[in-house]
C-alpha cells in the first residue's frame, strides 16, 4: 500500500496540506518582497489620493474598470513607447488594494492622467464609441447623473489609515504629513476637513463641466487625471530606477 494513504483518506488533513502546498509559491515569491530593501523605490511626489480622487477610485472599483484596464506598465520597450515610463512599486504604495490588474481588454491606465482633457474623459465615459469608433467599452452615462455620495468620506479615509495610508487624524500626524508632503498636500490628507476639501476640489476643477453639483463623474475624472502624474521623471536619470532591481 502507499505511504500517503494516511493523507489521502483523511479529508481534513488533506485540505490543510493542500493549502500549505499551494501557498508555498506565494510565500516564496511574494513574502520576501516585504523584507527586501528597495522593493519600494525612493522617489519624490507620490502622495495618497485626495478625498475626491479617493471616491473616484472607489467608483473605478465599483464599475469594475480593473477588469479590462490594467494599471501596470511593464519594463518592455513596446509598453514604454505606448504608455510611458514603467510603473514603480512606489507609485502604488498607497493603493489598497492596488489596481495593477491582469487583463488588458482596454489600454493600460497607469499614466492616463493629463493625457486627455476633462471633457474628453466625460464624453468618452458616457459614449466611448463617439470618440473611438472601434472601442468595445460600455457606456457609463449614470456617472454624469448620479450625485456623488460623500457622506462617509471620513470613514473611508479612516479605514485606509488603518491600512497604513498617512491620512491624518490628529495634530502629530498632520505635522508629520506637512514634513513629508508639504503643507498643501497635508491639508488634503486631513480627515477632519475631508468634506470641505472634496467639495472645494470638485468646484475648483469642475471636471464634468456642470457646476450645479458634484457628480460621480467629477470624482472618477479627478482620479483618472492624477494617475501616473505624481512622479516627475524628468528629475531623474533614465536609469535611476534600475538599481532597485
Amino acid at each position: 500500500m502507499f505511504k500517503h494513504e494516511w493523507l489521502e483518506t483523511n479529508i481534513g488533513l488533506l485540505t490543510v496540506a493542500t493549502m500549505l502546498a499551494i501557498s508555498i509559491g506565494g510565500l516564496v515569491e511574494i513574502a520576501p518582497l516585504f523584507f527586501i530593501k528597495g522593493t519600494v523605490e525612493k522617489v519624490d511626489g507620490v502622495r495618497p489620493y485626495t478625498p475626491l480622487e479617493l471616491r473616484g477610485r472607489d467608483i473605478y472599483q465599483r464599475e469594475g474598470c480593473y477588469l479590462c484596464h490594467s494599471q501596470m506598465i511593464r519594463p518592455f520597450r513596446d509598453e514604454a513607447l505606448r504608455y510611458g515610463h514603467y510603473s514603480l512599486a512606489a507609485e502604488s504604495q498607497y493603493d489598497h488594494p492596488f489596481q495593477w490588474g491582469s487583463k488588458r481588454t482596454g489600454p493600460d491606465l497607469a499614466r492616463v492622467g493629463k493625457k486627455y482633457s476633462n471633457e474628453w474623459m466625460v464624453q468618452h465615459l458616457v459614449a466611448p464609441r463617439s470618440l473611438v469608433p472601434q472601442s468595445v467599452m460600455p457606456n457609463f452615462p449614470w456617472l454624469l447623473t448620479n450625485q456623488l455620495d460623500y457622506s462617509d468620506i471620513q470613514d473611508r479615509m479612516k479605514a485606509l489609515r488603518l491600512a497604513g495610508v498617512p491620512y491624518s487624524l490628529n495634530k502629530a500626524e498632520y505635522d508629520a504629513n506637512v514634513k513629508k508632503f508639504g503643507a498643501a498636500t497635508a491639508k488634503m490628507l486631513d480627515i477632519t476637513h475631508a468634506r470641505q476639501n472634496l467639495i472645494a476640489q470638485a468646484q475648483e476643477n469642475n471636471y464634468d463641466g456642470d457646476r450645479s453639483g458634484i457628480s460621480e463623474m467629477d470624482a472618477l475624472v479627478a482620479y483618472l487625471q492624477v494617475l501616473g502624474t505624481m512622479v516627475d521623471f524628468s528629475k531623474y536619470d533614465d536609469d535611476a530606477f534600475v538599481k532597485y532591481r
Partner: protein
Amino acid sequence: MSMQKQQQQPQTTGHVWDGDLQEYNNPLPNWWLIGFYLTVIFAIGYWFLYPAWPIAGTYTKGFATIRYTNDKGVTKTVHWNSRALLMEETNAAVAKQKPYYDKIGSMTPEQIAKDPDLNSFVISAGKSLFSDNCAACHQQGGVGKMGFAPNLTDDDWLYGGHFDQIQQTITLGRHGYMPPFRGVLNDQQMTELADYVLSFTKVPVNPESAKAGDALFHSETAACYYCHGANAKGRTVIGSANLTDNIWLWANVPAAKTVADKEDAIKHVITNGLHKGVMPTWGGRLSADQIKLLTVYVHDLGGGQ
C-alpha cells in the same frame, strides 16, 4: 495495441470501492520523468544566472550581466534585470533611429518637411505618434470631430497653421474660451448675429436681419469683433474662429436642415459661450524631437500654411 498487452493483468492499487471500482497503478512514462528531472536541472542553472533566492533583506543577483549607457553617457554593467534589459533594448532602437533624429534635432520643421530623405520616416513615425496621442480627439487621419476637436486636414486653423504655431500648440496645449452672452443679448439680437454669420456662406437669411447683425457684431454692445476681428475671420493669437469660411466646429450648422435650425445652432453657442476645446500639454509627455516630427506630420495632413 497488441493482443498480449491487452491480456496483461493491469496493476491496481489493490483497493476496491463500492464492490467494483479499482484504481490503476501505472508508473509514469520514462520520457516524462526524464523531462521532469531536466527541468529541475534547468532551474538550478537558472538560479545561478538570474536573480533568484531571497536572503536576509536582499537576494542572489545571479552571474548574468547587462551593459548599458544611460542618458548622462555613463556606461554601467549591472546584474541581469528587466529594467536594465529595457535600457539595453531602448539604446539599440535609439541607435538605429539616431541618423534620423540627429537630422530632425538639427533642422527646423520647414526643412524637415522639404527633406525627401526624412519623408518616409516622418510619415511612419508621425502616424504612430498621432494614433497613440492625438487620434483620441482629432480622430484617425485628423479629420476632427464636430463639437469636440477641430479638423486638421483642412486649411482652417484656430491657432494658426504655420509650423511654429502648430509646434507651439502641441507643446503647450490650448484652451478654447468664448464668454456666454445669456442675459447680455436678447433673442432677436442673437438671431441677427446668427444671420450675419450665415450670410457669409450664402445661406438665404433675411438680409435686413443680417445687416442689423453686422452692426451689432461691430458695436460695443456685443463687441464680437474684439475677438473675431473686424472682418470676422478670427485671430489666431487667441484662437477665435474664422466665421466666414463655412467651416464649423462648435455650431453644427452643416447638419441643420432649415435656416431656423442653422440659426439655433449658432445661437446656442452665443448663448452658452465655450469653456472647452481643451488640448492637453504635450511638452512633458513627448520629447522635443517627437513634437517637431508631429508638427511636420500634422502640417502635412492637408492644410499646413
